[in-house]
């Protein structure tokens, strides 16, 4: 129970305002794939980043199923999620949200990609990365005027995901307090 006391810390102190500001950054990140935005408000336990914790506080709640992958699936994170978010923890196949490193989330083909008549019933992956820079694979598609670049962990999986459109999972990349979005609609090319 001593460990659980720490779980009471690190949530929003002023939820309506902090979640509003963070959501606008996440909206801009998802609507303009490849742009790197800054979010703040959450102080989640290790190994979750500020950005991943903030995204979970903004988007997840008791009505969304959450999958903790790899190192993220530890007692402090589970306690923190239980107190601040209340999302039921589920296996990858059933999750609305999943958080972890790219290696821990693999194989990502486990995640829900929606149904042909309800493509929105798909998972959103929150992928923890070491850093985010606008260098790497080339991104084009909705939300991008001409082309942009982002240091994705790989390209083949995202190309396969794009080929499923309008089905597919959507991705948020988080590093520290930085966040970037990669919706299923984005075309990815290795350069």
């Amino acid at each position, binding site marked *: 129970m001593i460990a659980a006391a720490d779980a009471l810390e690190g949530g929003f102190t002023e*939820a*309506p*305002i902090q*979640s*509003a*500001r963070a*959501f*606008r950054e*996440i*909206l*801009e990140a*998802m*609507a*303009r794939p490849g742009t790197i935005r800054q979010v703040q408000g959450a102080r989640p336990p290790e190994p979750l980043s500020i950005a991943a914790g903030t995204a979970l506080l*903004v*988007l*997840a*709640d008791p*009505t*969304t199923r959450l999958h903790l992958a790899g190192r993220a699936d530890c007692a402090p994170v589970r306690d923190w999620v239980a107190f601040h978010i209340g999302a039921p923890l589920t296996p990858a196949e059933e999750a609305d949200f999943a958080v972890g490193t790219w290696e821990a989330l693999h194989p990502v083909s486990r995640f829900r990609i929606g149904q*042909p*008549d*309800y*493509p*929105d019933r*798909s998972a*959103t992956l929150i992928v923890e990365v070491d850093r985010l820079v606008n260098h790497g694979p080339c991104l084009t*598609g*909705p*939300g*991008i*005027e001409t082309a942009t670049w982002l240091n994705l962990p790989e390209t083949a999986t995202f190309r396969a995901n794009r080929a499923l*459109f*309008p089905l597919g999972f*959507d991705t948020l990349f988080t590093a520290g307090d930085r966040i970037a979005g990669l*919706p*299923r*609609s984005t075309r990815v090319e290795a350069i």
Partner: protein
Amino acid sequence: MSDLGSQGDYTFAYLDEQTKRMIRRAILKGIAIPGYQVPFASREMPMPYGWGTGGVQVTAACLTPEDRLKVIDQGADDTTNAVSIRRFFQRTAGVAVTEATTEATVIQTRHRIPETPLREGQVLVYQVPIPEPLRFLEPRETETRKMHELEEYGLMHVKLYEDIARHGQIATSYAYPVKIEGRYVMDPSPIPKFDNPKLSGNPAIQLFGAGREQRIYALPPWTEAVSLDFEDHPFTASKAPHDCDLCGARDSYLDEVITDDAGRRMFVCSDTDFCAGRRAKGHTGRLGDPA
């Protein structure tokens, strides 16, 4: 309670956090699948359906304290619907408001896209009465959902063709259907088809909220929206063949105003901010006083 500008006892932007999270998830899925209508659990709002409850809920989920809000109804900032919604957010969110398109960061609109080009960082929220473009052709939701699934949009082209057969041209003049990135056919809300070209390649984020019908959909910036047409009957963005009588603008969408019972009338810009801005710069039309 009448203390305008204070948040009083409301949470920021009226809606509770649980509701906002639900709406925000729907918005993000809408952004990820441009043109697809995401179901959401629309709430009762303190205004009747048909007054923009869908747009109000989307705006409430997007607003931050730093935003500057503009609300327009058919292009006008000073009509009942626009004034009511603007006051609603002044009271419940305490946000700054403006009538200037260039100063606004969030613009909620009923049935127009501002004449002044939008820019990055702006969010345009549309109030949508009937989000389903196929609804008047096929009343069953189960069927229209399947038609979207299968990209079965032939019926829409038949409807436009029947327009041509009956009227010699495509008579649909508002809520003109668009195809988004070659996939989903979308209702752009009842904007005049004059505004359709502004949907495509717009640097702002465009969000659509239908409260009664419980749907949210979205266009990310720089998204392609093609108005449906035929090779021999290409789409044209039409407007009344006049100049604005107040500011003399030739390229803005016009409202027709009956001025007496002898049949006299005038045409004025539907976008009041655009018209006032032009008059302030010294442009005058047939009936306009120099400002």
